[in-house]
């Protein structure tokens, strides 16, 4: 518990400064972290967990699964079997590191590109497909009771994270809320209000900015004149840093530090994960309207899977044979999720009333009945 119980009456406003020349009252710096570079070369100290091949392989598999899932989802959308879909292509390391690092009873509050994290936390691929397939059951996670569903109104999940973290702190639980948002989301007041409040109460919350350098058609540079997004944390008086978001090892390492810090009562952090959106914004978008081919190609060099693949191969942890096996296993997993999704019956029309309130008010019973009748009329 870090909450001060001092009454404001005991708090005196700071006296005005009495100095005789321009005087530095505060200074800050923003650091950048990377461990494995784009070629798979080691450029920073390898953390302990990453000395265990099976751990790295787990990360690789998770990223790979997410990429294959993504690919499949886009195909489904093209075939008219899925609604608009937001791919996480190129940003798989962020979600993977988050899902890997969080503890089971932590709470994830994602935007809509953190499938990797969600899968590692027990959300099923079927559920994600149901969501984008227009079925609310996709938010009724069967194996994950506390996490928030995908969040579409940009940045609005950030204050939920503050509330979740507040509840954890109040109950003296060693749990952490992890909130993910995009670079575009950092322009919205919600984000700022949330980090500021998190700082005030030293809450156990970590804000991860998936800086994929685009917010639909607006490039990161036009979103804010701030040199880094991490420095937005300074406004809230909390720590902020940049991490190579395509380096899953660095991401895991820095996230782990931030989560431990939060868990131990030392307050919130902002992590700006530098990545790149290699796909369109969603399947409803056409990025060629606003983004050069050149830029896209250039950024493919930094993508997270091949980088870890290089490293694993270099270290002798991985071979062609593993590739084949992983491909086959993953294909199977994705295919069965797709089948399950396609076989899921639509919800009954009257379900639109069944979760509106815990029990439906008398005055709405008639409307619920009329949905049923109308449906029977159609059938």
């Amino acid at each position, binding site marked *: 518990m870090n909450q001060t119980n001092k009454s404001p009456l005991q708090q005196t406003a700071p006296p005005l400064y009495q100095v005789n020349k321009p005087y530095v009252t505060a200074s800050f710096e923003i650091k950048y972290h990377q461990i494995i570079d784009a070629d798979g070369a080691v450029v920073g100290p390898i953390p302990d967990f990453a000395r265990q091949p099976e751990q790295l392989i787990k990360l690789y598999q998770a990223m790979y699964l997410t990429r294959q899932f993504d690919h499949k989802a886009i195909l489904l959308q093209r075939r008219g079997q899925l609604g608009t879909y937001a791919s996480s292509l190129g940003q798989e390391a962020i979600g993977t590191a988050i899902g890997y690092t969080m503890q089971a009873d932590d709470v994830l509050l994602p935007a809509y590109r953190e499938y990797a994290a969600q899968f590692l936390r027990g959300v099923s691929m079927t559920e994600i497909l149901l969501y984008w397939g227009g079925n609310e059951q996709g938010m009724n996670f069967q194996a994950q009771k506390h996490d928030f569903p995908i969040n579409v109104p940009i940045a*609005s999940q950030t204050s939920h994270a503050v509330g979740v973290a*507040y509840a954890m702190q109040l109950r003296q639980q060693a749990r952490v809320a992890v909130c993910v948002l995009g670079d575009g989301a950092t322009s919205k007041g919600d984000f700022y209000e949330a980090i500021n409040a998190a700082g005030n109460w030293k809450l156990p919350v970590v804000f991860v900015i998936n800086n994929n350098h685009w917010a639909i058609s607006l490039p990161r540079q036009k979103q804010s004149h701030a040199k880094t997004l991490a420095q937005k944390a300074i406004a809230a008086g909390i720590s902020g840093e940049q991490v190579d978001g395509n380096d899953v090892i660095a991401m895991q390492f820095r996230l782990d530090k931030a989560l431990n810090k939060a868990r131990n009562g030392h307050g919130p952090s902002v992590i700006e994960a530098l990545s790149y959106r290699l796909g369109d914004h969603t399947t409803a978008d056409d990025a060629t309207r606003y983004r050069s081919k050149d830029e896209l190609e250039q950024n493919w060099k930094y993508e997270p899977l091949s980088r870890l693949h290089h490293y694993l191969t270099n270290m002798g942890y991985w071979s062609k044979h593993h590739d084949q096996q992983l491909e086959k296993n993953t294909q199977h997993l994705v295919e069965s999720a797709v089948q399950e999704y396609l076989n899921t019956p639509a919800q009954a029309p009257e379900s639109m009333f069944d979760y509106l309130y815990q029990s439906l008010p*008398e005055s709405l019973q008639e409307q619920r009945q009329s949905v049923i009748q109308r449906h029977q009329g159609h059938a």
Partner: protein
Amino acid sequence: MPEITLVDAVNMGLMHEMAADPDVVVLGEDIGLNGGVFRATDGLQKKFGHQRVLDTPLAESLIAGMSIGMAAEGLKPVAEIQFLGFVYSAIDQIINHAARLRNRTRGRLSCPMVLRVPFGGGIHAPEHHSESTEAIFAHIPGIRVVIPSSPLRAYGLLLSAIRDPDPVIFLEPKRIYRLVKQRVEDDGEALPLDVCFVLREGSDVTLVSWGAMIHETMMAAEQLQQAGVSAEVIDVATIKPLDINTILESVDKTGRCVIIHEAPRTCGVAAEIAAQLAEKGLLSLFAPIERVTGYDTIMPLFNLEQQYMPDVNSIMAAAKRTLEDT
């Protein structure tokens, strides 16, 4: 059992429920040591500590959003927005999240929060402090909108709002915060939500209102009585969801209806009540339904607020029109 005001009753309800349920937390601007700008939360922080009674930074969207997060984790946040004129930054969180957390997760998560907001005119308050925009909330599916009109109902309805498993916007008519006193027993007895209260029985005309306007409406009913007209008075209390049956039954009996609210007329809650009466009770109506409301203009600064708000005379006149027409 002392006589207490409406704002005291709110305070008593909060005290009661905080003591009874450790999951209840109270948050908002200036609600701690200061006890809220209307003193509705006076003494709570002293009794329950800084963690359960927390002063927030000046950020209404945060207040609503963090309440949602708290509620999803099983707390029962009771947040205060200082005045209804400042609730609008929180509307995104209310519409897009609080109102739908249960529905969108098919019941996996829910949002048992209360947003208390003083509202309405008549106290010579500054700009933006006197509006009544309850109709905006009444249009939003998934929430409840509850408005007490007396100390007794403030206590009983607040308890039920806090205990309700879904989000409740609890609008407090600040003009009558201290207008009348009533004996209110601190017995933890909640009043039912989702039902209208018949405050006075009558046979000639039904007067329907809520919040502070109940005061003028009851006075009008008294004066009508003296003029030989028997008015039934209904306090809607929960304007969302709306218990139209109680109103319909009354109008079935009286054949005449006057609906009174401070808010602007167009798309106000009276429109909904009138529309439902016109649909379901058309044949029992002896006269056109009358709406006595604020005008479709900006709530004026206080010099002219009396000219803006409905008063006893305008209610009486409307009631009499319903009687003349027949």
